[in-house]
């Protein structure tokens, strides 16, 4: 199969065999859910329920806190216990709504089915997406209705669906593509209609040949829709790398895909868009992979948003040995969480359990200047110099070396023989560079 790719990057073991054969199972509605107000990029949602309110499944419980924000809905029917701080899947502690299940499973308003959903007006489609509270489901969580509203001077000519899933372990997008291909394609067509794009691509890596073949089969009569097989390489799922791999277009530094006429959406997001427009269904559940070599039976679960990770693990039979690390997301860019009873959010594509022996405890050694990080960097930066300048507090220098262009994919740290925490240094540096910029503005 002829496959494309980008420059730089790494080849971690994909570790997908644990769960890529496991068909999606429904995770039963839990006793209680914790719905975070900030599951996306942008302003947190504002709660519109209070303690002891009775809510139903699909009922809006928090509204968007601005244009770049999304509303939240209850995935179960039950009672609001409290609005308080809870552990967040990014490792922080944030405001969330706790809801207790009453077991009735009553919908707030019955789901409709509009057969001719494709003929709705673009404004109505966007409205439905906005009301459904959809954000990018691949990880970053940018509000989808914003991404689908490019300014008029930025025409979009192509949509790329991201079915790359380059993070090791995760298989939720893979399973979704295998089990719901028609819905994903319908979502793609809807997105193309919304931004009036002519062409659509679905980028899939070669370790998912079954998904590539299935999608090709489904698209064989579509002239303007194509599957783009991609070589196995991390971080191909990163927006800029995916666009480059599929089309050889480069997103300018500091710019967005829309600057070169492209919009990238995760396949999961496309599916949610389809459901929101056809059935007016709010985003209240998603597919999440529960995996890791110590999990007894790794699974792909359709989970109500706000379910506890520990209950999901129990549903998969628990672990064979003591948990070394719990990662929300994939092991390359995900967050290590201190608490196992953290709820999942709209962006939780997977939770990975690592054993004690997988926890890297090697100490940083001096840089050998081997340049492996330079070769691995998909943004063509010099990671070791960035880390070094930040370590020495030379933030102006770091800025000149384009520290802000780093996408924090972790390829540099992955290949570093001295085990230098390059990404961590760069994250620190970005914060400090931000402070410098702020100070300069004040003056």
């Amino acid at each position, binding site marked *: 199969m002829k496959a494309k790719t980008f420059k730089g990057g*790494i080849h*971690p073991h994909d570790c997908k065999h644990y769960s890529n054969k496991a068909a999606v199972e429904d995770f039963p509605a839990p006793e209680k859910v914790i719905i975070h107000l900030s599951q996306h990029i942008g302003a947190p949602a504002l709660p519109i329920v209070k303690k002891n309110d009775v809510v139903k499944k699909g009922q809006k419980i928090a509204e968007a806190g601005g244009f770049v924000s999304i509303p939240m809905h209850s995935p179960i029917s039950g009672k609001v216990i409290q609005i308080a701080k809870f552990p967040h899947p990014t490792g922080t502690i944030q405001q969330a709504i706790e809801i207790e299940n009453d077991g009735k499973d009553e919908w707030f308003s019955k789901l409709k089915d509009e057969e001719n959903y494709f003929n709705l007006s673009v404004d109505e489609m966007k409205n439905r997406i906005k009301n459904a509270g959809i954000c990018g489901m691949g990880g970053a969580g940018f509000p989808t209705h914003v991404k689908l509203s490019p300014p008029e001077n930025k025409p979009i000519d192509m949509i790329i669906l991201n079915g790359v899933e380059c993070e090791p372990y995760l298989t939720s997008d893979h399973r979704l593509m295998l089990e719901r291909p028609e819905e994903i394609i319908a979502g793609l067509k809807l997105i193309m209609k919304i931004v009036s794009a002519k062409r659509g691509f679905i980028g899939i890596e070669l370790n998912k040949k079954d998904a590539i073949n299935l999608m090709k089969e489904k698209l064989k009569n579509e002239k303007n829709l194509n599957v783009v097989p991609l070589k196995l390489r991390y971080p191909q799922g990163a927006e*800029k790398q995916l666009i*480059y791999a599929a089309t050889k277009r*480069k*997103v*300018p*530094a*500091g710019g967005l895909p829309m600057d070169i006429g492209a919009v990238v959406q995760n396949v999961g997001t496309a599916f949610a868009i389809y459901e929101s427009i056809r059935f007016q269904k709010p985003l209240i559940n998603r597919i999440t992979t529960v995996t890791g070599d110590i999990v007894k039976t790794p699974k792909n679960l359709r989970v109500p948003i706000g379910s506890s990770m520990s209950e999901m693990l129990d549903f998969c039979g628990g672990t064979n040995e003591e948990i*070394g*690390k*719990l*990662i929300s997301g994939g*092991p*390359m*860019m*995900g*967050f*290590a969480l*201190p*608490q*196992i009873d953290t709820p999942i959010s709209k962006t939780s594509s997977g939770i*990975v359990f*690592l054993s004690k022996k*997988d*926890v*890297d405890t*090697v100490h940083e*050694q*001096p*840089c*050998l*200047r*081997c*340049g*492996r990080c*330079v*070769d691995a*960097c*998909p*943004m*063509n*930066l*010099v990671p*070791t*110099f960035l880390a070094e300048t930040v370590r020495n507090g030379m933030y102006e220098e770091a800025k000149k*070396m*384009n520290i802000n*262009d780093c996408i924090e994919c*972790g390829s540099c*740290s*992955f*290949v570093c*023989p*001295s*085990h230098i*925490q390059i*990404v*961590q240094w760069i*994250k620190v540096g970005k914060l400090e560079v931000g402070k410098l910029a702020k100070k300069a503005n004040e003056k």
Partner: protein
Amino acid sequence: MNLLNISTSPHFHEKIDVKIVMWSVVGTLFPALIAAYIFFGWYSIFLTALGVITAVATEALIQHFRKVPITISDGSAVITGLLLSFNLPPNAPWWLPVLGSVFAISIGKQVFGGLGYNPVNPALLGRAFLMASWPVQMTTGWASKLAKASVVTVSGLKNSLIAGSGNESLQNLITSATPLNLAQQIRGDIADGVGGEAYRTIFDNLSSLDYIKSLFWGNVGGCIGEVSAAALIIGAAYLVYKHYIEWRIPVSYIGTVIVFSWMLGGIDGLFSGPILFHVFSGGLILGAFFMATDMVTSPVTKNGRIYFGLGCGILTVVIRLWGGYPEGVSYSILIMNLAVPLLDKITPQKTFGYRKKN
């Protein structure tokens, strides 16, 4: 509550560390060591062992006195000792590798703070020190177990030449020199109008396919570790494959030597130089794959590495053709080592998405 380990991403790491990289380099130098045994016998192995042991002991001792963790197990001192010894004549006196290693590790490496901080390749610095202090011991003693290897292959013809001419200086020249030495002198003499046809024939024979074969396998006079290009290439191929050394430096280095030796290295004017002779003789293969690629003392940026190899290549050819020494690999690398900070600065990476530099 039972809390779990946390850290920033990535939580996944390639199975690699400094030790793995360094010991892989040591391992890939073993074929060359075996070649040294085959061509020069046990004494060359003994010299190499002395060099390695001294290097490791020096590193341990200095780290002990510096009150820093002793890191001899990381293999980097072993490499320095190995490479230094590889640069010595096979019949050198035993104290040569010892003094060289002490100097290489102490002045070449630990003075600057140890692994990762040395500005130039310690092994090469050690060699330069020996070359400056004991030039006679460093440039004699090439004779090999395979009886006068340097003549054996240029042989039949040469023997008749020597016998026929009764030219004693020519006789001495051939029996004592390494191939590069021979080539440099002949080339110089021809340029000066001395030697005539006999010299020309020898020069032609140096670049003949038969002789290149001997060079490639290592059946010639030369330093302990650099005679067998074949043995070195086997090891280097593994390192490149594992990405423990990277291809840009050796490719640009050897490429430059090819171009310039072809252009300037001949005796019949421009573009008549014996390319393969220059590639496989002397320390080029060892230098290009194992010493110029020393991570610590080569540029970090991709283009920097290309220019680094280019500089090494030009200097090597210049020294070989017109310099005071027959071989220029080690000095060219040393000089380019010093240019590394500059190269890193003037060859910034073009970040993805930037059209041109503003």
